[in-house]
């Protein structure tokens, strides 16, 4: 006997699932840009393919990132994913052994215990082939059930699992969750009842079956239990493509495509769609979001935003209510490019009114080696640009201050608001100016500018943030600094740290001239000061609430100075700070040693020829 009516709910559910997934995935992959399809073609036959399989094993099955965050949560996810996967694999091999055929109907391994009643081996004879299968199948089922117990506990005590705030799931997701939760207890019951009647099963189902058979009519209960098990599976499969459990198959696809080098860029394309569908709505992004922890905003976090994207009902106030600090992106266990997706969606719902900057006409800047671009925010914190020009003067480098008479925005704020065309106009203007100057290095004081210069301008010259430039000057002995006894905490600006990966240079600079103290949230985990230009929605009270929490943490151990590397962070933090807030350029400028620096300059002059010296003197005049 290899068929019974009760397999139908499962079987039809599975066919439905496969058809829906097939249609969706084919559509998404076909809709990818041509360049991305080429990347897939090249990727399939390369090392990237095997690296993806390794990543899928560690992330989709073992859930390594979840383990790192919280062991209980990791175990829960691992037991479900790995346990179920092993159940399918071992069950398949087992069914082949019993049927003697390589190809069996898909329901056969799932409901094998219903069709086959092997009484030849005892439940604990695991050294025999059938005994081994029984043992391992029961072990995997037990593994999954352990995860299920944890999932139950998590409903009540989500804090033990590292969740401070519970996620608001939709009714549909809850239905899918219920179906999922019913699957394995029902499997246990069905197998135990059958084992109790036929005396089969492994260590778990056999002993449980024996217990049940003592006081229950297991021969009558087994069949309904198999029906219920099949129904639970069918219900889960039918809801899967429309619920958050879509992440289970889609994440696998995502890992392949991401490793092939595909990513969400300026437009929301079908790869972004795949990313959105890969979101498991675990809610890790909620706790890490400062809008949630400091500003009492609970409905705009990435999880809710991605859900609205999936349901095609993006609201403007949700899309724009995000600091774009990147903390959620850093911690997301699936590694979804959350900031990029949000920006593309902002672009889609952006107004039609175009911007026109035809009043900007590029002039001819002086030709120099180094161009210094202060940026809008630096013009609001003049001490930074003053310090930078002072340092540049000391080094004797041939530089020009590109936006000394008022800056033209770098374009990043428009870009973050989704106005790419407006940003492009500003970028073209600045790019022309920079290229006309013939400089080999561009130094900027603002991390917001730095990111866009680096990533979107395609300048073909060295682009440095002033932290990098100062560190370079120190290494080349072009400036000499005097160490002090001061204690300092460093605040990582979002765009410089998470945005551009610059963590070490500012720390090295500070360590060489003062004592650097560490804080609770550092580097990739650093907090946003609250001044972010990414958020257009929050009001000044909410901004201040975020700023206050950040300041409290930075001032916890009463440092003499809070050093940061962003004019906007400086401006935001300086408002209520007891400690002095300085940009790293000011901090370095104050530590300059005039006499030693003069010596360095003299030595530089010594190496110059007479003609060069005359030229220099003329220039000074």
């Amino acid at each position, binding site marked *: 006997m290899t068929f019974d009516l009760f397999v139908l709910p499962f079987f039809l559910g599975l066919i439905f699932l496969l058809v829906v997934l097939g249609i969706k995935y084919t559509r998404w992959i076909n809709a990818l840009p041509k360049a991305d399809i080429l990347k897939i073609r090249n990727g399939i036959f390369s090392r990237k393919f095997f690296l993806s399989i390794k990543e899928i094993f560690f992330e989709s099955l073992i859930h390594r990132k979840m383990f790192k965050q919280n062991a209980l949560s990791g175990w829960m996810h691992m037991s479900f994913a790995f346990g179920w996967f092993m159940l399918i694999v071992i069950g398949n091999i087992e069914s082949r052994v019993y049927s003697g055929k390589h190809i069996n109907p898909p329901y056969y391994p799932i409901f094998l215990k219903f069709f086959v009643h092997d009484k030849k081996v005892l439940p604990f004879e695991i050294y025999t082939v059938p005994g081994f299968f029984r043992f391992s199948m029961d072990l995997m089922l037990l593994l999954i059930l352990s995860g299920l117990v944890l999932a139950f506990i998590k409903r009540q005590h989500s804090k033990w699992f590292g969740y401070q705030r519970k996620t608001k799931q939709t009714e549909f997701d809850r239905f899918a969750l219920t179906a999922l939760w019913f699957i394995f207890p029902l499997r246990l019951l069905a197998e135990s009842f059958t084992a109790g009647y036929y005396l089969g099963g492994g260590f778990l189902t056999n002993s449980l079956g024996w217990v049940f058979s003592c006081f229950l009519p297991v021969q009558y209960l087994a069949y309904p239990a198999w029906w219920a098990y099949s129904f639970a599976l069918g219900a889960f499969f039918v809801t899967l493509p429309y619920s958050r459990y879509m992440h289970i198959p889609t994440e696998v696809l995502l890992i392949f495509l991401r490793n092939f080098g595909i990513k969400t860029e300026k437009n929301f394309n079908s790869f972004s769609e795949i990313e959105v569908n890969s979101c498991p709505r675990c809610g890790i992004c909620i706790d890490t979001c400062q809008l949630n922890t400091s500003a009492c905003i609970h409905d705009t976090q990435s999880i809710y935003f991605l859900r609205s994207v999936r349901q095609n009902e993006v609201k*403007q106030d949700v899309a*724009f209510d995000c600091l774009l600090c990147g903390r959620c992106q850093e911690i997301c266990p699936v590694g979804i490019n959350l900031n990029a997706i949000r920006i593309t969606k902002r672009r889609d719902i952006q*107004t*039609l*009114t*175009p*911007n*026109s*900057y035809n*009043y*900007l006409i590029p002039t001819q800047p002086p030709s120099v080696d180094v161009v210094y671009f202060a940026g*809008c*925010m630096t*013009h*609001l914190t003049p001490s930074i640009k003053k310090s930078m020009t002072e340092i540049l003067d000391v080094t004797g480098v041939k530089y020009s201050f590109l936006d000394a*008479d*008022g*800056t*033209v*925005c770098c374009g990043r*704020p*428009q870009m973050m*608001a989704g*106005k790419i065309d*407006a940003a492009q106009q*500003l970028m073209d203007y600045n790019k022309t100016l920079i290229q006309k100057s013939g400089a080999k290095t561009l130094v900027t004081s603002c991390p917001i500018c730095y990111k866009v210069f680096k990533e979107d301008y395609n300048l073909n010259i060295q682009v440095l943030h002033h932290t990098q430039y100062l560190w370079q000057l120190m290494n080349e002995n072009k400036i000499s600094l005097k160490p002090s006894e001061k204690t300092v905490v460093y605040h990582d600006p979002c765009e410089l740290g998470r945005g551009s990966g610059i963590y070490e240079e500012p720390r090295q600079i500070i360590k060489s001239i003062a004592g650097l103290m560490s804080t609770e949230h550092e580097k990739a985990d650093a907090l946003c000061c609250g*001044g972010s*230009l990414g958020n*257009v*929605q*929050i*009001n*000044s*009270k909410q901004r201040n609430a975020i700023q206050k929490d950040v300041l409290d943490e930075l001032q916890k151990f009463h440092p003499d100075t809070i050093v940061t590397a962003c004019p*906007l962070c400086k*401006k935001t933090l300086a408002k209520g700070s007891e400690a002095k807030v300085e940009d790293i350029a000011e901090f370095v400028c104050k530590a300059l040693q005039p006499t030693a620096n003069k010596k360095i300059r003299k030595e530089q002059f010594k190496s110059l020829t007479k003609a060069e010296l005359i030229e220099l003197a003329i220039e000074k005049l």
Partner: protein
Amino acid sequence: MIDFGYNINTDRQIDYDANDHRMSHFILSREPSYNLCIGCGSCTATCSAGNFTDFNFRKLHLMIKRGEISEVKTKIQKCMFCGKCLLVCPRGVNTRNLILTINCAIDELKL
């Protein structure tokens, strides 16, 4: 006519009843901090675009409040969205959202 060396200014009477207040209402419903403005002009003093053109956010704000919205569309296009005005505003007006909302209003009211 005899040239006396001076002339009569054009009428600058503001007729609140005849003016178009739709944009003002639209903005107020979306960005309440619109009403906090005291017209100090800090935003305009620091404005990046104002450095190159006659773009004047304070004036724009005043015109919208009065309901004189015919020039808003051409003027608002000059804004670079850099956010300096937001940082200098002593009243905590969310100027950047105000600019976005003005753009939305232009779309919505089909100006």
